[in-house]
């Protein structure tokens, strides 16, 4: 029965974008983007700097109002709601609980001066947890899951390396068991060896937790490892979309062929 309910839920989209556009004066940063994301699905948005992928991510995550079009999200009660129609309490619920947002720069997603434990615990307190011991246990088990030595739980992320900070940011986001996580260049700015570890970790967490994710990246290797589907953006428009391995192994559009052929062999 539970299985059937799960299957039924998976058949209903989690997030629907319709005709999303954003212009700044005469400049169109993002034009007419539509897609549907299902529970458990990982979508990568790829393209070079200035292609509009970050603008799109900000609209999808209700941080930027679109000039035209809309984003709908299936709330936990099963009803698909237009994000622009949500009240303040519902928006807060999304940001604090049901969504995660992983910034490229962990300093933007963490509070750098408070302890790692508090960084993770804070999201739990925001959803009503109050028992100190339970919060600390949850924080500690999440540090373990993201491979951070729990002996460092009382240290501030200021004292962490770049890779540790990024893993802490992921723990902070996932502790509330969100259903959807937005990631903006999650491996950008990290050493290659650190990237591989982070990618492997994210890949496992996403599949174990059945998370849906929208990942913005300019790195096609990241898209290949993490995502099921990919959207290629150029000049604010989606120019090609499909199954990730299909788009990367059999690219049709000239720009996608250029992107794929520009990867340097290791």
């Amino acid at each position, binding site marked *: 029965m539970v299985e059937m309910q799960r299957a039924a839920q998976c058949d209903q989209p989690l997030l629907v974008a319709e005709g999303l556009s954003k212009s700044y004066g005469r400049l169109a940063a993002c034009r007419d983007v539509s897609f549907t994301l*299902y529970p458990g*699905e990982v979508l990568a948005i790829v393209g070079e700097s200035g292609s509009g992928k970050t603008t799109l991510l900000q609209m999808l995550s209700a941080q930027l109002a679109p000039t035209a079009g809309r984003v709908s999200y299936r709330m936990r009660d099963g009803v698909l709601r237009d994000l622009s129609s949500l009240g303040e309490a519902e928006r807060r619920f999304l940001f604090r609980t049901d969504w995660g947002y992983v910034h490229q720069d962990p300093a933007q997603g963490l509070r750098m001066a408070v302890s790692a434990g508090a960084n993770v615990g804070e999201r739990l307190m925001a959803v009503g947890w109050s028992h100190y011991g339970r919060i600390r246990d949850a924080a500690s088990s999440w540090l373990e899951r993201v491979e951070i030595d729990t002996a460092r739980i009382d240290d501030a992320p200021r004292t962490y390396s770049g890779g540790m900070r990024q893993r802490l940011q992921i723990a902070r986001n996932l502790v509330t068991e969100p259903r959807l996580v937005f990631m903006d260049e999650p491996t950008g700015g990290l050493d290659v060896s650190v990237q*591989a*570890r982070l*990618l*492997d970790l994210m*890949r496992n967490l996403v*599949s174990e937790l059945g998370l849906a994710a929208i990942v913005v990246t300019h790195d096609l290797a990241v898209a290949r*490892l993490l995502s*099921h*589907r990919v959207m290629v953006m150029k000049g604010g428009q989606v120019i090609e979309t*499909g*199954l990730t*391995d*299909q788009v990367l*192994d*059999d690219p*049709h*559009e*000239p720009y996608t*062929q*250029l992107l794929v*052929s520009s990867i340097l062999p290791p």
Partner: protein
Amino acid sequence: MSVMIEMTGAEKTFTMHLQGGVRLPVVRGVTFQVKAGECVVLSGPSGAGKSSILKMIFGNYRCDGGRIGIRHEGAMIDIANAEPRDILSVRRATIGYVSQFLRAIPRVPTIDVVAEPLIVTGTSRADARQQAGHLLRRLNIPERLWALPPSTFSGGEQQRVNIARGFISDHPVLLLDEPTASLDAANREVVVDLIDEKKNAGVAIVAIVHDDEIRRWIADRVVDVTAFAAAA
């Protein structure tokens, strides 16, 4: 026996935009069927499009025309026109694919590379690892290597890891792209046994093998791909 794969008039052309839009026709009019428990071997010289046909069936290459029917969960689904999420569902439950080269994931231990297809369909990690170990042992990958990522393994070892990963699931359709190319005689025999077991279990197989002896052992039928040559 029921038909598991039904290709009808499938075709594929690459358009190379970076080379001035050169069109590279690969195959045209690909038509054949594979029944449950049957092994069809694709034959033809290098470049005839054998691997491309496997990739089209797997949904890795897009199909420019025709139909690629796959029996998936009791109904025929057309891979040539399926939505991405339907293709993913077909790959999870129905089609296994052993590519020529293992695409290694950094840092993931060999045992987990092999166990992963079972884990994503709901088998517990412990059970999946146990079955993975069983297959790796049959394929003569020593246990001391199981905890290491396969990226540093020899070509033959990587291929055997890839075979273990492809054979671990009970997928009713299996695509094999030169599964024995860099294996020694003993390991080739193991792979032939594994293929026989799959056939006896009713799995429909499409394979590319260059070794005549192995082809005689496994093939129920040979489909000559040069008949589908698209280059006019």
